[in-house]
């Protein structure tokens, strides 16, 4: 069945370092979404990418959708302690469902 894989599972960085998480789908996606979950919190929508090769930026966060629409990445420049949390990618399934990756948990050492 359709799978969405994320790597790495965990990442520890020093504050100010960059961070990247990668998302790979077993099938071509019509779009991909990214969510952030703070420790003890709930997932919150960050962004949706739709077009092949699309790149979107939100301040220090850069999101990219692969040319083949089977992979995506989230890059954070100069991490801050407020970036701590788990980042999930999610691709659409039929009937309005999403399939979520396992998430990448980011820890930032001040």
């Amino acid at each position, binding site marked *: 069945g359709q799978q969405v894989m994320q790597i790495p599972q965990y990442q520890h960085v020093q504050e100010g370092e960059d961070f990247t998480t990668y998302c790979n789908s077993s099938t071509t996606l019509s779009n991909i979404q990214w969510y952030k979950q703070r420790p003890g919190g709930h*997932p919150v929508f960050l962004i*949706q990418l739709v077009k092949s090769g699309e790149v979107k930026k939100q301040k220090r966060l850069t999101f990219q959708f692969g040319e083949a629409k089977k992979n995506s990445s989230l890059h954070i420049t100069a991490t801050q302690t407020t970036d701590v949390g788990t980042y999930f990618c999610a691709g659409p399934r039929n*009937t*309005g*469902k999403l399939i979520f990756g396992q*998430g990448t*948990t980011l820890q930032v050492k001040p």
Partner: protein
Amino acid sequence: NAGVTQTPKFRILKIGQSMTLQCTQDMNHNYMYWYRQDPGMGLKLIYYSVGAGITDKGEVPNGYNVSRSTTEDFPLRLELAAPSQTSVYFCASRDGLAKNIQYFGAGTRLSVL
């Protein structure tokens, strides 16, 4: 602006007990979902609904039941709780239009002992 509201926030159950996790949304969304999240894991879909009166199974439906009598409410019922159901449960909704954004509730943290 309440969004998606889940109750209770925390609950401890004994093995074999039953309970209902409540979820209500005030955004008039047609689609609603129940997920469980085990420690360090992603979100697994339990059940979903595309509108009042319509529900369907997700990836991990065993041991759970749902109903959708109104657009606003989507309760999740646990019958005969088992330790394997210890998890954090999230309810989510979306409006069914072009943007497939899901809005999550704050979650219910359930322990079965």
